């Protein structure tokens, strides 16, 4: 409701609402994720988040921390999935989720957020660019399970 409460709210992912994360991903993303991936989402705290619009869950983000083998501390946050249901795009829900990820990065002194985006998904590429991401190399055959096999751009936000 558009009262005093903000229309967009974030909430944690937990065992009870894990089905929501799964439903959003299945509806938006081209490939399904394994059950183990969802279970892992319960262990990464603030890096998995649901977004509510007028109290209906419509968006979700799930990230991982990247720690190079030479380092002991993570150097970047990698966005594994960031999805908003189609009818709810353009309301700033993805932005709100990204803002949350950026805050997490700042909190742990990580200066980089990265993501792979399907090269055919121009809207997504444009959206990430609009958020300050830089389009880097094209990874051929990134989506192995896609038919035909799909390629992805590696994109990066440096802070």
């Amino acid at each position, binding site marked *: 409701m558009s009262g005093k409460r903000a229309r967009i709210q974030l909430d944690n992912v937990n*065992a009870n609402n894990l089905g*929501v994360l799964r*439903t959003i991903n299945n509806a938006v993303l081209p490939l399904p994720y394994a059950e183990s991936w969802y279970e892992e989402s319960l262990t990464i705290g603030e890096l998995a988040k649901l977004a509510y619009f007028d*109290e209906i869950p419509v968006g979700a983000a799930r990230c991982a921390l990247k720690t190079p083998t030479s380092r002991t501390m993570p150097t970047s946050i990698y966005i594994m999935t960031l999805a908003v249901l189609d009818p709810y795009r353009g309301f700033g829900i993805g932005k709100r989720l990204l803002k949350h990820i950026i805050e997490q990065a700042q909190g742990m002194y990580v200066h980089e957020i990265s993501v792979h985006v399907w090269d055919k998904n121009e809207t997504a590429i444009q959206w990430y660019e609009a958020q300050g991401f830089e389009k880097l190399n094209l990874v051929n055959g990134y989506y192995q399970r896609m038919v035909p096999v799909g390629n992805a751009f590696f994109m990066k936000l440096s802070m």
Partner: protein
Amino acid sequence: MFNTSIPKNRHLSSKDAENFRELLKFYENKEYKKALKIANVILKSRPTHGETLALKGLVISSMDKKQVDEGYALIKQGMVNDEFSYVIWHVCSIFHRNAKNYEEAEKSYAKALQLDPENMNVVRDLSLMQMQNRRFDGLVASRSKLLTKQPGFRQNWTALAIAQHLRGDFAAAENTLNMFEEALKEPLPKEDNENSELMLYKNQIIYDSGDVQRALEHLDFIADKVLDTLWVYEARAKYLLELGKLKDAEKVYRILIKRNPEFCDYYYQLERALQIEDNNNLKAIMYRRLSKMYPKSDAPRSIALKFLTGDAFAKVVSEYLKSFFVRGVPSAFVNVKGLFKADSEKAAIIERVVLEYYAELKKESDSPITLLWVIYFLAQFNSHVQKFDAALEYINKAIEHTPTLVELYMTKARIYKRAGDYAQAAAVMQEARALDLQDRFVNTKAVKYLLRAGDIDTAVEVVSLFTKNDNEGKGVADLHDMQGLWFLKEQADAYNNAGNKGMALKRFHAIEEVFKEFHDDQFDFHFYCTRKGTIRAYLDMVHWEDKLHGLKHYKRAARGAVEIYLSLYDQEKNGQANGGVSSVDDGLTPEERKKLVRKAKKEKSKELKKEMEQLESKEIVDEDPFGHKLLAAKDPLEQALKLWKPVQTEALSAADAVDAGKLACEIFARQGKYLLAMQAINKASAAGLDWVYEEVAKVRAFSEADEAIAPTIKIVLTRSLTNLIADAFEGTVVEWLNRHFGDDTFDTAEPVFNYVSARQVCGGEEKARDIVKVSFKLARLNCTANEVIRGLRIVEQWGCAEDVAEYKKLASEKWSLATALQV
């Protein structure tokens, strides 16, 4: 209490007397083991000492429920040995009271009091029993006695006034409260809640006495001395209205609406005060104004929708619904669905308005939420008017739009349920549950849907996610403890549908048991509330308790159990008539019957095996874990009557009581109590109820088959029936029945079932044909999936294979989703 003349057999040596006092002390402190030990010491020297025997009985029955009978035997023995001891009678009353047998307890207390008239503890306890048993004459006497002894306690005055009030002696009740007020040296402070309650209560007594004018005057007098301002406003408004002081009443109702603009009754009373109840134009103006005055309030808008018609209705309902859609309120449909029932034109208008809005939104909309709720509404609407395909199309569209919204799946499940596909309904409800596992509401719904689909095992598993579970992880016992009536009822129905009548009976009786607990629960309040002074709430509870068995949940359970008992009786009777073989009158060929018997045997042995496994796997505390004892009841009709009688005596309204006569009639007709059955029928006839013809036919059929009927009864019955329906004896019962159930009678499902039920009792050669023929009407009638499937079961029982195929074919035109009807 030490009398000067203690009889010899009661007298104890000083040492034993000392021990006896110890015994009492131990009992009171609930140190039962020590008490038992010391009782045995006394009994060693005085084995026949009555009071000790009785106390020992009380002690051992308090220690262990299994020893209740043994304990009672000891008390009785004590009584034989020493019949004039008030102690023993007192012990006996406590025993009954502990067993919640308040009738017997009251008798014992009365007896104890006879032997020891000045014992105020006994008087007080007796008064509690009298209250529990609603013996108001005795209650007034007991409480007068208590007040005379102890006038210094406010609670004694209150308690007496309550007794007098309940007995209907308003003047005496008021007088008691007056005397209390006079006895006060100075008025009590306003903050004294008990005093405030007492004044309000007195006002209620004056009103109940019928003197509204004086009640109003008294109310004005106490208004600024009491704390419950709302009650004062409501009472004043009501009194003014009843006294015809409409202008003043109007003012107070407007104040009340201002205080709480969501309470519909204030608006209805305001209509009465303005004398515009029957003038829709003026009402429209009033509600329009009030809607403007209270823009956030639902009541003035939704009430107006009830009486507005045509274009005016379309305009208001359109705005009303749009505001819901825009705000994203899920309950839009629920708020207007009440309007459909009364008026199909309104349904059409609502559909049109919402479809127009939907078209508008589809063209351009900046709010996905609004669009979503509109589609959701259309799905619910189509489900409600039984257009299941359209409903599914809308709901699937909504789910595609927002697949994360639990409500959508719940509605989809409901559509499948209404359409008769119970398995799919349960599966979708499980999907809904998976979206939010911690939502108990969805969990409960999923359990209910699983039970409707007959999947009892999964249902128990799912419900056990939220209960305190036993060693096997099942929560069924906890749902008994927590009085989960919905679960007990749904599980009973599921067992019943699966043909497991024993378990069904067991669950229905478990519901009866819960209501017994409800009834027992009031006991503590008889004392507590008079002490705390919360009189008005207490009296509300007392009146609620008086109508306990008229409540929906009890009625449903009792009906379920009674129907099983009736079928048990009929089976038994038919079995006897046919020399112990199964009923011949089932319209089956011998081969078919053999097949059925084989199938039944196979299923039974399967069931038995399962039961044996369950029996071995756990320790049995339940004496009748599968309801077999209930099934074997010697007197099923008496059992049925015991369950059903309170539904009649505690009915919430006169109309309810008359309608409850139907099942009573079924029982009486089978018991040969035809005149009692006629009484129920006569009342129903006066109320114009549909089931009269069914029951008349049954009474005639049962009485004609009854060889033992007394000639005088027969004469009276014949006269009574002819008085009611002039042609009651023209032709055979069957001819009469068929004459009264013409084709035009069967416009809803109810008369079809009434006919079938009566026709089954009446016999005659064409029985199976008649039943099948009439049941076929259900395939085309406007009814529910449940009813059309019930029709199928009847055709399966009485018709041949072609009949069944034909019924399915006819019915599945409308009920294409109903699994049972698929060929």
